[in-house]
């Protein structure tokens, strides 16, 4: 569109210049200037046509036949004009066999140009940038060629020894045209191929994702099934359903086993839940919730863990006013807070963990800052963006998957609430601070 506009403007300006010189002939005679004006007029008509087409976004497919007829008539008129008038082409035909070749070339030349234009405008509504440039170059050459035929050739026709110039010029134009034509064709084919490939790829990706989702769904069944007797029997043995477990060491080990099975179970449930949330298969169960109470509960639960390591566990609530009630999925938000605090305690050996709740405009920010071993920036990204599973090698050098799953749960659950999670750390040994922002909805 922009190219057409540019060429159109250029032709209009040249056209007005020609009209001016037609009245006050300089360099050539009046007639020559008239001929240039004529050639430019043809260009103007073409350009106007393209402009209207690109501006109106009309699909030309419907008008294929009438358009071909109009183009053919147009081409015939030009050629007829060449023969009918007493213009240089007739001299050429009369004067040398080259003239015949010249006319034939002219025919092919117009046909090719027309074919390219037709093909481009009939088949692809949106032209590639480069392709429209080639069309315009070809088209410009077409106009120049006509100008040369009608205006400059008389200059050459007089001294016969220069006659060979005209077919040469035409051959050069023809070659340029063929070159342009194949460039366009190749570009078109490549574009077509690329589009096809992209379609195929996205289709494949969709299929893969579907297969993966289905796989995970079936996996949940298979992974849970052996857990039923495992959990059940352990539960019954520990509670003494099969008689007392007299050996205290055996009993202790059994309790350890039960803990591990419970952990395995909760990890699996979390992973399934994350997957279901990601797939949009599960929705949140939102209810009014006071986040400070939820945090207090979790602190109460983890207090013992912190005390054992001699760590402080501080909660700082805003001194100015109350916190708004939030719409949260209590069970899942509890998991978020639990995982954050549990991680903070696990990876802190001196000092402690501070939880700060800030009341910000239209959102609540929860800050969990520990004085622990800290994290690399890269590492935080890996975990929060769930890239732990994407980039195994690089992520492995940090911790292994233990910390990642917790953070992955945090990210997915907070995201599902429309919130944000990010982390900051000065690096190893300098503590980590995690931020959660939750929107306050009316």
């Amino acid at each position, binding site marked *: 569109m922009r190219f057409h506009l540019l060429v159109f403007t250029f032709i209009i300006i040249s056209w007005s210049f020609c009209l001016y010189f037609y009245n006050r002939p300089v360099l050539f005679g009046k007639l020559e200037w008239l001929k240039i004006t004529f050639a430019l007029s043809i260009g103007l008509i073409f350009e106007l046509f393209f402009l209207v087409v690109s501006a109106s976004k009309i699909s030309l497919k419907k008008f294929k036949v009438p358009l071909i007829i109009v183009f053919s008539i147009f081409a015939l008129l030009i050629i007829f004009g060449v023969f009918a008038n007493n213009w240089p082409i007739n001299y050429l035909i009369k004067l040398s066999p080259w003239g015949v070749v010249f006319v034939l070339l002219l025919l092919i030349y117009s046909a090719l140009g027309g074919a390219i234009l037709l093909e481009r405008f009939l088949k692809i509504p949106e032209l590639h940038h480069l392709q429209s440039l080639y069309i315009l170059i070809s088209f410009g050459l077409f106009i120049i060629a006509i100008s040369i035929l009608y205006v400059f050739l008389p200059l050459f026709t007089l001294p016969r020894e220069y006659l060979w110039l005209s077919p040469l010029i035409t051959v050069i134009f023809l070659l340029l045209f063929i070159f342009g034509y194949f460039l366009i064709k190749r570009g078109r084919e490549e574009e077509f191929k690329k589009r096809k490939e992209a379609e195929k790829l996205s289709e494949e990706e969709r299929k893969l994702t579907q297969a993966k989702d289905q796989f995970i*769904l079936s996996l*949940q*069944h298979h992974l*849970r*099934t*052996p*857990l*039923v*007797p495992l*959990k*059940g*029997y352990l*539960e*019954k043995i520990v509670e003494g*359903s099969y008689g007392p477990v007299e050996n205290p060491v055996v009993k202790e080990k059994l309790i350890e086993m039960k803990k591990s099975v419970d952990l395995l*179970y909760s990890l699996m*449930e979390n992973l*399934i839940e994350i997957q*279901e949330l990601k797939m949009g*298969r*599960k929705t949140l169960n939102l209810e009014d919730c006071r986040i400070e109470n939820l945090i207090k509960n979790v602190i109460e639960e983890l207090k013992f863990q912190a005390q054992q390591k001699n760590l402080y566990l501080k909660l700082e609530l805003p001194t100015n006013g109350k916190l708004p009630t939030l719409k949260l999925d209590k069970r899942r938000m509890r998991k978020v807070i639990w995982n954050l605090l549990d991680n903070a305690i696990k990876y802190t050996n001196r000092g402690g963990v501070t939880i700060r709740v800030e009341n910000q405009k239209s959102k609540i920010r929860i800050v969990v800052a520990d004085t622990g071993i800290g994290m690399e920036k890269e590492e935080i990204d890996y975990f929060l963006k769930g890239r732990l599973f994407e980039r195994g090698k690089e992520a492995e050098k940090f911790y292994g998957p233990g910390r990642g799953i917790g953070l992955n749960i945090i990210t997915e659950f907070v995201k599902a609430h429309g919130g944000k999670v990010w982390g900051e750390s000065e690096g190893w040994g300098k503590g980590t601070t995690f931020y959660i922002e939750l929107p306050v909805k009316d």
Partner: protein
Amino acid sequence: MAKPNILIIEDDPPTIKIFQEVFTMAGFNVEILDMGQKGIRRMEEIREGKKEKPDLILLDLILPDMNGIEVLKEARKYPETRNLKIYALTNYSDPKFQEELFKEGIDKILIKTQYSLKELTEIIKEAVK
């Protein structure tokens, strides 16, 4: 008082074993069918009066020969078995599938791993009351 009859349609042998043990100890008459086809056959037999109606059916959804939902559909199709109490007791928790189950008239969906055996026993006791 007669013992309540519980029909469990389930295919995983260790699971069958522990359910049988726990629910028998809890005072139920437990019968196990390990194939979907057997469940469908049982519905026919109940219709023909050859077998007694159980007080509760615990239906696993992923069975070796078919999807458990087929058994549910078969039961809900005929007036004789339409009012049977059927609980899905499964490990397959796809919410989309659960929706379908409710549409077909399941009474409750229980995810096996989400309950302890004690809790499950309580739920069943409540169901057969």
